[in-house]
């Protein structure tokens, strides 16, 4: 194994680094039951 020291960070990060469900939903402006549950009308 050869370790490469950091030089220039030209590599790209994927989106949503480690965001959890509730963070994603709150950021989307959703206010679902318990954060991610869609209730039927009779509930």
């Amino acid at each position, binding site marked *: 194994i050869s370790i490469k020291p950091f030089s220039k960070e*030209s590599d790209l990060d994927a989106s949503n680094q480690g965001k*959890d469900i509730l963070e994603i939903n709150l950021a989307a402006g959703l206010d679902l039951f318990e954060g991610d549950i869609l209730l039927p009308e009779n509930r």
Partner: protein
Amino acid sequence: NGLRDPTTRWKFPIPYILADNLGLNAKGVILYAFEMFRLKSCVDFKPYEGEDTYIIFQEFDGCWSMVGDQHTGQNLSIGSGCDYKAIVEHELLHALGFYHEQSRSDRDDYVNIWWDEVIPGYEHNFVTYNDSYITDLNTPYDYESLMHYAPFSFNKNESVPTVTAKIPAFDDIIGQRLDFSTIDLERLNRMYNCTATHTLLDQCTFEKQNICGMIQGTRDDADWIHERGDGPGKEDHTLVGRCKEAGYFMYFNTSYGQTEEAALLESRILYPKRKQQCLQFYYKMTGSPLDRLVVWVKRDDSTGNVRKLVKIQTFQGDNEYGWKIGHVTLREEVKFRYLFQGTKGDPQNSAGGIFLDDITLTETPCPRGVWMVRNFSHLLQTTVKGDMVFSPRFYSSEGYGYGVTLYPHGRNGTSRSGYVGLAFQLYSGENDAILEWPVENRQAIMTIVDNDPDAKKRMSSSMVFTTSKDHISPDINYSNIWDRPSIVGKYEQSCNCFRGISWGWSAIISHVQLQKRNFIKDDTLVIFVDFEDITHLNQTEVPVTSTRKSSSGLILQSQGLQTSQEDSHTATLEGQPSNLQRQTRSVENTGPLEDHNWPQYFRDPCEPNPCQNEGICVNVKGMASCRCASGHAFFYTGERCQAMQVHGSILGMMIGGVAGTIVLSIVIISMMSQRRS
């Protein structure tokens, strides 16, 4: 924390639709999550075929689901940023009838809810349910559940949690999003009465004396020995010498006897459902470099006897004496055994032998890229944030060269500390001239492997993304980063090749998490990397055949969901190739068997049973064949046992009886009328 109401439980397989508003990556991740359910439970999914009840996966805002079977077409949203294995699994567990873990009626015994820290107006998200409505399925509170809130849920101060565990050791476990916990699976399997999984065929740690039903070959020269690892250098792989009176493996001593002497270890007879299997095992060869470990298969010779031998793969000894992971692809369609043959290469120059441990046989594809990062603790000590290590080059089934970059302390630029980062990149390779560039619509799956010996308990961290024409970089003049590495990449001396720009995650898993499970065993971190074409998932729509009842009833307080596509009268079928599918060039003509997205024909054609009237379905070379029920008086016929017929003798007797009765009646009537006259 599952719904008590049995009417909310699904019948398997669950019909599903992948709507075309989903991104390509989301579709691939959903199919990958299905495979996790199939590996670890009896839950199964099938493409929608006009059923009344089904799940339609759509891309709305956010990640959400309804709870339980609503007996209609119900939406499950995999919105932007939700296309991760664990998130899809979480939403599917809702759909299967589970609420969040911390809403159990007894949760206050286990966690503290810091009400003052909850965003005002969001307190209703911390309700508990009465045990007349939900059941814990006789399982303890599970801090490790995939269904547990993370500590910082609905918090008003960024650094102050709203949920903490009463046992502080679990504070950094609650809210894990690796995979199902052991108790998640116990509940799921209890709720749905699962007795077996769909794709786990066999596994063995050799901890028990029966060695999982394996048998010693009878025509060989020697035997494999069931041994316990005592002392340095002789630790097993299951427990790595951590436990007394435990830690067994199979051992073939190659340091005495004659060259070419062999020992054979045969598995029990196994019955495959799919057409491809992956045999994974750990082995260690400490004897001569000429020693050999050969994997064979004995399959049904079409007379019912498992005796037809086929050699599959040979592993040669070398001078590296650590545990190694082995993968062998099998393509068995009828009953078979797998065999390990140890052969002595040079007993005079051997001071050891061949070790074998932790075997897992699954009906899933083997990983194409396997990287064992040895001396990982040393690597952690000698690197700082931003330092990186490149994997060797692997080749995809199409022939693309690829690899990963490991950042032991994460990438520069991330605010998180104490995390490992992982990124994917293309390497130039021997096939580049004939391949298509830029390489789009290929799904990369990077997995940091949890090496639990029980495949059902593995909680590996998987990151998935799909290459796209939108992935561009200013460093290469806003060209696509998935173009040919010799054009857009930089020369890399360690592989004597070009390395493209990488794409990945600055912080994929914490060092604390890495130490908690079996991620690091024998001081080795194992990473799987796959890179497969999923273009065929681009357009796979079929119409919904019946009028869909709306699964509306959104309870929203601040913003409506975008439901413009909810009434889409189209449905998506897994694995149905589109006419618009791009023609791709490939080095290996491996076909769809290499795909991660198991096509329809991989599934058991007998599930669900197509035979009517209690007919028994038999899988004959991947085709369903019905064996119809037969009674004393009648029997069923037809391709699906749909037609009832009466036995000839019974029919004769019935006709004879009826005719006799009629004749007798006529005679009696005529006699009586003669008497009257």
